[in-house]
């Protein structure tokens, strides 16, 4: 059953991405100011949204683990964090390549770049912490606490440098601006890609969560075997 869900999600994501990729590359025009490079936005922005959504879901799952003690919540939180981290890195790397062409630098200490980097560092620390603890419930408790601290920190970083010197373009999506900053056809393509990436991230999370469950099973079997 779970296999089918994973395959279904991946297939849906692949179909959407393929059709949308054709539209992005061949139907939609170049950006008037930036030329073809602007097409990175179709992966750059959806990846960021996917990553932040994932980190938020991880926060909720961590709080759920602490209040209920359910190991499922813990393995889901770990999986969602790891997958989101991949998308966060994807966002940083594509952004860096884009910046190299448009701003002439690979990196600048701008509000959005900094908060994404802090995000990556914190959640990489989360994964390191999980590797450093063997005992499953202790690992779950401590990493859940770190996840909550980490999310609070990302919010503070975000708020604290909002007024700071910013190179990064202001929001262009109409949910933030009320419309008029981006061609509706381009914006639609971006949302469709977002949907595909979220589906894909969900599939990866399910696979990863199953690995966590398998690792726990191995662990408990080992303990059981050692008890005799």
């Amino acid at each position, binding site marked *: 059953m779970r296999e089918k869900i994973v395959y279904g999600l991946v297939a849906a994501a692949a179909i959407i991405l393929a059709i949308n990729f054709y539209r992005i590359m061949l139907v939609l025009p170049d950006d008037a100011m930036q030329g073809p490079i602007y097409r990175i936005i179709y992966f750059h922005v959806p990846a960021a949204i996917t990553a932040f959504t994932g980190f938020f879901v991880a926060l909720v799952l961590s709080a759920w683990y*602490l*209040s209920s*003690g359910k190991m499922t919540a813990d393995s889901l939180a770990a999986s969602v964090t790891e997958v989101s981290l991949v998308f966060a890195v994807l966002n940083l790397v594509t952004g860096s390549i884009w910046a190299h062409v448009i701003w002439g630098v690979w990196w600048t200490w701008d509000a959005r770049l*900094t908060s994404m980097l*802090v995000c990556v*560092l*914190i959640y990489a*620390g989360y994964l*390191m*912490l999980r590797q*450093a*603890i063997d005992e499953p*419930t*202790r690992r779950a*408790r*401590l990493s*859940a*606490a*770190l996840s*909550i*601290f*980490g999310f*609070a*920190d990302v919010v*503070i*970083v975000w*708020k*604290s*440098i909002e*007024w700071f010197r910013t190179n990064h373009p202001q929001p262009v999506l109409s949910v933030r601006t009320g419309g008029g900053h981006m061609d509706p056809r381009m914006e639609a393509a971006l949302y469709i890609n977002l949907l595909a990436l979220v589906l894909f991230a969900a599939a990866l999370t399910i696979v990863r969560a199953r690995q966590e469950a398998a690792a726990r099973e191995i662990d408990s079997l080992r303990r059981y075997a050692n008890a005799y």
Partner: protein
Amino acid sequence: MPFSKTSRKTVEAPSAAPNVIGSSSPPRLVASTSFAPVKQALAVARKDLSVELRTKESLNSAGAFAIVILLLFSFAFDPDAEMAQELAGGLLWLVFAFAGALVFNRGFARELPNECLDALLASSVSSASLVLGKALASVGILLIIELLSLFVFGIFYNKQWWTHPAELAAVFVLASWGICIVGAVFGALTVNLRLRELMLPVIIYPLLLPLLMAAIELTNRLLANQKLGESDWLWGRVLLVFDVVFTALAMLLAEPILVN
């Protein structure tokens, strides 16, 4: 405390705990008034500080470390140059953050020998008070180191740092508290880990980034003899928000972090 599964208030203090703690007046720990958590935290802090003043473990190591780094930097960059002006805040706060990590590493690890940590957790001191007390003690130690570093900094870098004493003190206390509460929580979190000395800095430095940014910005302004203006108040607000949010989270999460 939504996360607590067991009420710790019902647990009687075992008679062994006060001995382990080694403070001169053990009954202080078993306070039962409405200010009990704060009193307990103060008792833990008092005990930590008196141990520290006797052994001077953290003070010596972190203080020496801070001075050596300041000295090295004054060799690496020419301190008379304009650059010293711009580097001052960043240099000082990086030194404090590094020195702080040395202090926090000791904070909970100090309780590991003789199972003191288990005894403390079994006593009537709540986990939140324990973390708060550890943070109070480290903030005391860190402030001493900061004051010492400022003197050394003034000499090596030929700078008058005392022109706005009140503002500087406020910035230092607020920022140090933020560093120490995060340090205390994650000191507790990493206390039983292998690679403890590595994990602690890897986790806390990214978390401390907004706080350090604000502290560096404000310290730079104050050391450049400028009055704090409207835009600096925004950085001050970052310090305040960081302190409040992280202190609250620390109190909330102390129990699941410390108690099995």
